[in-house]
């Protein structure tokens, strides 16, 4: 496995993108990942401030009408290779707000999503498992 892939998987910088229509529980669970008990910095992952630094975009919330175009522009700015992770039932399949008038289209109709982490909210362990699977997918061995 060449050095490039190894480097990418060993230091995955994460950017949190909340597309509106979320009950901020997944976002609290993402912040839980930084706290002492689940500390993801030991895997080399860091929450970064700008989408240009990010390798992985954590998408939470079911897309509201208002934030549709902004999500596209943010995604285009991310430096490739970039991975999109959908966190929580709302991002994976619009969850409980599916037939709401304000959240018509699911997230994966706008962004190419690589890993779906279901759960409402997904447990921090589930998120870490999701990222382990993502690394498995990137490095080719299942």
């Amino acid at each position, binding site marked *: 496995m060449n050095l490039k892939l190894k480097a990418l998987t060993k230091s995955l910088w994460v950017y949190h993108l*909340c597309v509106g229509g979320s*009950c*901020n529980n997944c*976002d*609290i669970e993402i912040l*839980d990942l930084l706290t002492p008990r689940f500390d993801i910095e030991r895997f080399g992952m860091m929450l*970064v*401030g700008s989408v240009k630094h990010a390798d992985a975009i954590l998408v939470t919330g079911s897309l509201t009408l208002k934030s549709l175009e902004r999500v596209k522009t943010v995604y285009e700015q991310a430096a490739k290779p970039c991975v999109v992770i959908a966190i929580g039932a709302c991002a994976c399949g619009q969850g409980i707000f599916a037939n709401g*008038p304000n*959240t018509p289209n699911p997230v994966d109709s706008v962004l190419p999503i690589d890993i779906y982490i279901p759960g409402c909210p997904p447990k921090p362990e589930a998120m870490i498992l999701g990222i382990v699977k993502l690394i498995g997918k990137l490095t080719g061995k299942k």
Partner: protein
Amino acid sequence: MANKIIPIGPYHPLQEEPEFFRLHVDGETVVDIDIEIGYNHRMIEKIAESKSYDQVTFLVERICGICSTSHPFAYTNAIDDLLGVTPPERALYIRTIVGELERIHSHLLWLGLAGHFLGYNTVWMWAWRYREPVLDIFERITGNRNHYAMFKPGGVRRDFYEEDFPWIKKTLKSLIPKFDMFKGAVMDDPIIRARTEGIGVLTRQDVYDYSVVGPTARASGVGIDVRKDEPYAAYDKVEWKVITADGGGVFAKAVVRILELYESTNIILQCLDNMPKGDIELNIKDMPVGEGIGRHEAPRGEVFHYIMSDGGNSPVRHKIRAPSFMNIASNKKAVIGHTISDATIILAAVDPCYCCTERTAVVDYKTGKKVMDGQDLVRLSQEKTERMRR
């Protein structure tokens, strides 16, 4: 700064759904404040009309991630009021325990964030570290860290097992010394006291004018608490007292929340001790025509649910009012006259959903040009702590 307009991009590392405060500032002091909400409006009331009564409990649970059992609590109270029934004893006790456990985890979460806004990141890490045992208790008795899906019209969905009680009691008792540490950290730390005392004060008259609820009102000496005024679930079978403080400032609100931690623990321990046997739900055949009002004292204040049913399978109308709806409006009075660096902690004192304070923006009163954004305010308040400490 050059006359660049600073875009407040909605995508920011720490924020969740955005409410939006725009402070009109004259130099350092805040002169006026615009409050805009609705960025995250999911039209839950519209969706509720298309769901059956039982499904609405799951929808209503996902209104707010932090107090995710308050809304089902009030909703099921409303249905019980509509039907005129009261769930069995054991279900009432289980409901009280879940409600109080959530108050602990929500207050600890707020404590961590207040520490973060004042510049004490270690307080943030510690508060959220001691919140984990509470989430473990939740995971053990309800199966999930939040969104517990415990409530059902006419009772509770899952039963507690006797052999869990000793473990829950041990974990809760282990938290009490940690609460003492936080009480010490907040009450005796001269810098936090200096930073939060006397700012963002709401007088008793303000509490009436803005009809604020929860710790925001209790911090100004107004002892309104739905658990005492209209006892529901097992709150009248357990003796506890309503915490009020006078002063009405941010410090009083912090004190009220910390003392409520102790009160909630002692309620839970009492409920665990004298939990009666028996079944945990009534089966409800059909919903009569009529309307029902249900209330619950959520960590942030009184949650109010109103249901109107025409005998059909889903509610005709389901009005939901979160406590922050009233508390956020009261910021208009609390923030005016204070400096910008205090603005963040005043807005956070109402414990609105986490992101409101991140979205504050400061517009220069004369030029109307955006001068600082939410994050500057967080830093300003952190510096003020720094100045105080020196």
